[in-house]
């Protein structure tokens, strides 16, 4: 239909009623006056660029009032259909699709495939109304009742969408992905949908029988068992039965994955894994069916376009991207591109893989282990649906995994024994607050990196505040009588442990805030120096606090109370540094090495410096570290301290105190302690690699001379996501 005839048809359907007279009768409260002459005069007098504006309708309001291209607001937009009913009257979604059963089956498979593509597109961040519910069959449930296969499939889709929307809503941290849950006006609560699985089972059983029937040799077929085949072409019966079965089974198992994972306290995780495995297996079968389906569509097995949204390559019947544009909640007016069928399958494979990782997590009550798990999980940049499932597993009813009260988790993390749980001091308001702060942190750690980083920066203030409160309480407790040394003041002892742990946790958040900046590409190369410098400062404090926590024993009289004023490099000389601390020391050395190398290059070459006409490095330092500075993390660190630490850096001095060599050494030494920890082993290997490369690069720079024009030095993230590898090229 070309534009003109569409417009005409549209106008004819919506022609205003011109026959009413221009005078509207007055009532008790209203008198109408014809303003046309006034408007005419005004129009003639207004010059180009002049506007009439009222007190409450300024230019900003005028601008915001116009919504171009949104059919609910832009009456000039021409849509093919004004409503779903009009689309259906026009024959968009026939039921049955064809009287020819073979064509009917083919078309239904195409619809199933396109729906999968729509679903993946929705998960990836587009609105439900423009994706899954662009299917007219879904939007008018009563129409499909006569067609068991189509009907049960539609029910399952609606039920699944409802389940997933609910899960995402419950998590409540989908801010930037808020298009996801908008479902106003869409039929997500259709009566009868809850029976979808039993209906689907019935259809699946039927098709299974049809499959068995077509495979049984003629001689063995008993007349009583003769059932009507799926479609009319006997040669294709097996192929179509199989193609349908794997699609139906995938749907069924996917529903079960969702419901198992929602069972409280992680009780359904093991069963969920079985369903995940079935889903993945069925996805494999679905992919394999493409050859058969394409062959029957086109008579060839060529791949066709990569953009196709169905296995067969045909366009699915019954979809219109603008079907809901007039009725639903804000739908972005721009049409969107539905993911290709192949990409959709890849998406679901990926999603299931991530869900499987979540389901295999042993629900460790150790907070440290959990934080490492979450950080590792996030490295693969999982999508919203996977992340939401992780969050809902971690935090249920204010407890970790719904099992461990958060305070107990904190006690354990702070290396106090469970006995402490009975102590009165834990009933204090600030412990309740601390629990909430920890839960909030866990939720934030499950969100997308961009949002996560902003939130982590913000909560640093909360952690600082609770630290101050606890510190006040500690001073109060330890001030009452001088019983710390003989260990009678249990309250003070508890508070001391908690204080150390809170500080350690604060620095951990600060370090995560800084390193996420690399992943999000927030730093330009000219800023790497200050970032690595700040990172090294934070990591040093983190290591200090962690070590302190480990050495301060459990609230007893044997409290060492030694304040670790030594730098971690000095500590390295002491025997038996816990491996976790060495791990951090390795990172500290890398960060320091990179900061000083960058500083040295800048000092010697004045490279990587960007003289800006409007501000200096000072302003950029303030901006990048504003949230850390505001929370005094760490104390007494400022731009002048950064300048002081780096203004005398030279290549020669960096070579002398070769931090990269130290990092390499530490990595080698501590490797054996992490043999049972594949994630940390892997990271240590990479850290070692980076250290080695950088050490060599440093030597080359030193040998050739930083000022040599043939030398080109760059910092690339080829091994590690935030510790750069120094790449030296000679031209």
């Amino acid at each position, binding site marked *: 239909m070309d534009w003109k005839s569409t417009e005409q048809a549209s106008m004819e359907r919506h022609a205003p009623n011109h026959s009413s007279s221009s005078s509207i009768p007055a009532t008790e409260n209203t008198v109408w006056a014809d303003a046309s002459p006034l408007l005419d005069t005004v129009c003639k007098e207004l010059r180009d660029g002049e506007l009439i504006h009222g007190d409450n309708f300024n*230019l900003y309001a005028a*601008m915001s009032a116009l919504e171009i291209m949104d059919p609910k607001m832009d009456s000039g937009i021409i849509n093919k259909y004004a409503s779903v009913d009009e689309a259906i009257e026009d024959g968009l979604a026939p039921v049955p699709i064809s009287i020819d059963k073979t064509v009917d089956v083919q078309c239904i498979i195409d619809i199933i495939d396109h729906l999968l593509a729509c679903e993946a597109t929705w998960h990836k961040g587009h609105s439900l109304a423009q994706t899954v519910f662009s299917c007219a069959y879904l939007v008018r449930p009563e129409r499909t009742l006569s067609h068991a296969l189509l009907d049960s499939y539609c029910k399952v889709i609606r039920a699944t969408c409802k389940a997933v929307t609910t899960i995402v809503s419950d998590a409540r941290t989908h801010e930037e992905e808020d298009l996801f849950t908008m479902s106003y006006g869409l039929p997500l609560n259709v009566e009868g949908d809850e029976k979808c699985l039993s209906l689907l089972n019935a259809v699946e059983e039927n098709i299974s029988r049809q499959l068995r029937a077509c495979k049984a040799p003629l001689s063995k077929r008993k007349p009583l068992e003769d059932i009507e085949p799926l479609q009319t072409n006997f040669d294709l019966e097996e192929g179509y039965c199989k193609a349908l079965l794997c699609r139906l089974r995938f749907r069924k198992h996917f529903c079960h994955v969702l419901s198992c994972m929602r069972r409280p306290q992680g009780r359904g995780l093991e069963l969920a894994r079985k369903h995940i495995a079935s889903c993945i297996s069925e996805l494999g079968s679905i992919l394999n069916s493409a050859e058969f389906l394409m062959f029957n569509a086109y008579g060839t097995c060529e791949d066709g376009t990569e953009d196709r949204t169905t296995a067969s390559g045909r366009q699915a019947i019954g979809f219109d991207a603008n079907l809901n544009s007039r009725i639903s909640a804000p739908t972005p007016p721009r049409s969107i591109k539905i993911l290709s069928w192949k990409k959709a399958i890849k998406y679901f494979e990926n999603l299931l893989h991530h869900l499987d990782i979540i389901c295999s997590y042993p629900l460790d009550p150790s907070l440290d282990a959990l934080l490492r798990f979450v950080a590792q999980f996030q490295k693969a940049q999982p999508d919203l649906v996977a992340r939401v499932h992780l969050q809902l597993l971690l935090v249920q009813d204010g407890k970790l995994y719904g099992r461990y009260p958060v305070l107990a988790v904190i006690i354990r993390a702070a290396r106090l024994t469970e006995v402490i749980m009975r102590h009165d001091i834990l009933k204090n308001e600030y412990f309740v607050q601390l629990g909430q702060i920890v839960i909030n942190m866990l939720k934030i750690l499950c969100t997308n990196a961009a949002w996560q980083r902003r939130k982590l920066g913000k909560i640093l203030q909360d952690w600082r505040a609770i630290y101050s409160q606890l510190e006040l309480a500690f001073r109060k407790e330890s001030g009452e009588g001088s019983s710390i040394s003989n260990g009678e003041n249990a309250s003070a002892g508890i508070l001391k442990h908690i204080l150390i742990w809170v500080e350690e946790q604060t620095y951990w958040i600060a370090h995560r805030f800084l390193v996420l900046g690399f992943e999000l590409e927030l730093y330009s190369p000219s800023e790497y120096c200050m970032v690595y410098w700040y990172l090294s400062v934070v990591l040093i404090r983190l290591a200090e606090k962690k070590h302190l926590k480990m050495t301060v024993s459990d609230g007893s009289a044997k409290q060492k109370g030694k304040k670790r004023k030594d730098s971690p490099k000095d500590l390295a000389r002491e025997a038996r540094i816990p491996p976790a601390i060495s791990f951090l020391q390795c990172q500290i050395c890398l960060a320091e090495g990179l900061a000083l190398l960058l500083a040295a290059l800048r000092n010697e070459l004045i490279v990587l410096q960007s003289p800006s006409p409007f501000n200096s490095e000072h302003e950029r330092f303030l901006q990048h570290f504003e949230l850390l500075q505001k929370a005094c993390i760490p104390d007494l660190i400022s731009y002048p301290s950064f300048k002081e630490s780096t203004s005398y850096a030279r290549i020669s001095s960096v070579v002398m105190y070769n931090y990269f060599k130290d990092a390499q050494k530490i990595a080698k030494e501590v490797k054996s302690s992490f043999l049972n920890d594949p994630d940390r082993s892997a990271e240590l290997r990479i850290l070692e690699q980076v250290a080695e490369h950088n050490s060599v690069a440093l030597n080359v720079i030193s040998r050739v001379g930083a000022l040599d024009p043939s030398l080109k030095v760059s910092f690339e993230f080829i091994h590690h996501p935030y510790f750069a590898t120094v790449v030296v090229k000679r031209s």
Partner: protein
Amino acid sequence: MEQVQEKQRKEEFDASEIEYVSYGGEHHLPLIMNLVDQELSEPYSIFTYRYFVYLWPQLSFMAFHKGKCVGTVVCKMGDHRDSKFRGYIAMLVVIKPYRGRGIATELVTRSIQVMMESGCEEVTLEAEVTNEGALALYGRLGFIRAKRLFRYYLNGVDAFRLKLLFPQPEMADRDDTQNHDDHSPREEYSELHRHL
């Protein structure tokens, strides 16, 4: 809003031939609208343009070459939510044959200069993470990438919020509260922006 900067086939000219003009009135409006309509893919109504150039004419500039308008920058400034006086760069366009010659930099620089002189504490804008030209341009001017906004644009592309902080006389006393953009990515324009 949108920024465009790509290197493509170039027009031959000398930098001194480019004339920079501050927004001077209604007669400039169609020039700006045509440029932006031509180069950027989003539809803006005339009210959007009027909002900017009527209220802040001193912040919009055009670049002319031999009488032809080849580039423009459109900005605003004002009190932001936490009472920070802040400039905002809404649109920046230079037509393709004239790119890569510093015209965009010059336009933006003039506008930022006026913002600075008017007492702005900082300047901000959004740019697609894939817009290398814009990121390089603003980076050279001292902007940092303050935040990454996930799927900010309707086509699913992320954005960086770029911010330039002017040197302040008394840093220690500034009571910064970074709350304003963090509750939602919806700046005043984001609502407008998301639908564009």
